[in-house]
């Protein structure tokens, strides 16, 4: 089946259950008049407008970059596409097998060894024993953890964790790939190798949705850009068109930043 993503008039709100007192609500609403991302919903609850009126359709072959400042709603949109957050209004439909690389520690248990964590991930993807063994072999050879692969991940350095998480997440090749920008981070020696593997994976996927603000990556990998601002689509179009306007607004185009968001 051909992969396809359809998003229609998507809205996501985060409820703020701890800001229910009247006076607090009033003062927050009074101060939030600028951008108005804090709103009162129909039930008079305080909510953060995470996403508003998002609509787009992706066909096979399309590679979408989500750009925007911190808090613009990029990660929330990825999570909504992955089916983690269900729409508060509108709809999300995705056809084809899906893999979402959202959280580096995605279900990793620090008490388990690297090998056991890989097995666990395989089971989440409904793999049988042989497939799990193949996955372990693939991850082991790529992550280059040596003897550490059979030790609890609790004692790994942060670089090793990233390497394991990266190898694990990129070992499963889906039709629709959703990716958050932390995947572009990693230690220097690992970068080239990681990038190569990621590119293979990206090329293998029918549809890619990538959240980033790295100009270089967007230009070399993507065919379309959606610029999010305050939870709404500010601009949607071809890479050059959007990036030209957007690039004027950002100042950190560093590729593979050393710092890794945890």
């Amino acid at each position, binding site marked *: *089946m051909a992969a396809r993503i359809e998003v229609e008039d998507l809205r996501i709100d985060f409820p703020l259950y701890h800001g229910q007192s009247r006076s607090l609500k009033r003062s927050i609403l009074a101060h939030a008049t600028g951008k108005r991302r804090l709103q009162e919903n129909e039930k008079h609850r305080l909510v953060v407008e995470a996403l508003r009126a998002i609509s787009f359709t992706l066909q096979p072959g399309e590679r979408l970059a989500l750009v925007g400042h911190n808090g613009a709603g990029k990660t929330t949109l990825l999570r909504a596409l992955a089916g983690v957050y269900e729409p508060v209004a509108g709809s999300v439909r995705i056809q084809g097998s899906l893999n979402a690389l*959202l959280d580096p*520690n995605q279900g990793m248990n620090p008490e388990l060894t690297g090998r056991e964590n890989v097995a666990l991930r395989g089971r989440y993807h409904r793999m049988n024993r042989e497939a799990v063994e193949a996955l372990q072999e693939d991850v082991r050879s790529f992550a280059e953890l040596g003897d550490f692969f059979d030790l609890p991940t609790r004692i790994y350095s942060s670089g090793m964790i990233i390497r394991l998480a990266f190898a694990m997440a990129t070992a*499963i090749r889906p039709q629709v790939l959703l990716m958050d920008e932390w995947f572009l981070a990693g230690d220097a020696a690992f970068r080239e190798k990681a990038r190569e593997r990621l590119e293979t994976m990206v090329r293998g996927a029918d549809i890619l949705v990538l959240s980033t603000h790295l100009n270089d990556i967007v230009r070399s990998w993507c065919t379309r850009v959606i610029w999010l601002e305050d939870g709404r689509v500010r601009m949607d179009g071809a890479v050059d068109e959007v990036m030209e306007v957007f690039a004027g607004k950002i100042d950190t185009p560093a590729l593979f930043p050393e710092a890794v968001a945890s």
Partner: protein
Amino acid sequence: MIPAEADQGFAVDLRHGLGLRARNTMAFQDVVRGIGLWRLALMLSWLDIRLRYRGSVLGPFWLTLSTAVMVGALGFVYAYLFKTPIHTYLPFLALSLTLWSFLSSMVSDGSVVFTQAEGMIRSMRVPFSLYIYQLLARNVLIFAHNVIVIVVVFIAFDSPVSWSDFAAIPALVLWLIDGAAVALMLGAVCARFRDIPPIVSSVMQIAFYVSGIMFKPDMLGHRSIYLLYDPFYSIVEVLRAPLLGHLPSQMTYVSALGFSAVLCLLGWFVFLRVRHRIAFWV
């Protein structure tokens, strides 16, 4: 690289404004897809136990040992207090306490079943029922370790084995269904209202003392009839009585099944109403 298994149809198909019937279908799919992940549920539950006791010499058998010590200590004191012969009281107590710890840990785990899985829930779309199955499997495994105490006590006091023991099998199935219903209900409600878990634990503590766990129901004399209004009593009794060699009364069954039906309906209703909100709450 290994290609991901392609699901037939939509990998994600979510919309707002579904009616009750559509939500019911989604809740049902959640439960069915969770069953498809039974290997994972078993693996996770086994890991839960193994990790809790990683590095310990006795491992999960600490559970057995502590149950044994508790049964022994309480047994001698309370047999004297209640002026009951120890050879009938101790088997009763061993069974009662083990069953109660099975039940109460299902309830207390149930109230944190979703909040504990916060990391997974937010990073991947996995059927919520998976966490319920994990909880059931874990508690059954723990119970299995405690069964040793019951067996030893029963052999030591030469308790009779009878045909009525088979009546425990449907009762155990009822327990698992009830456990799932409690977890569906409490898991969701406790994720939203963080005041509920402490309430649950104090209710459980009171229930332990009033539900005929430490004392035999017939010690209440003609007042034991009131125990039938206590869901904890009747649900424990349908599993306990057969193992002690007599079938529970008809009214006990009526009470246990009635409370279970209410519980299941309530659990299902809560789950189908709030399933789509759980990710926002944890």
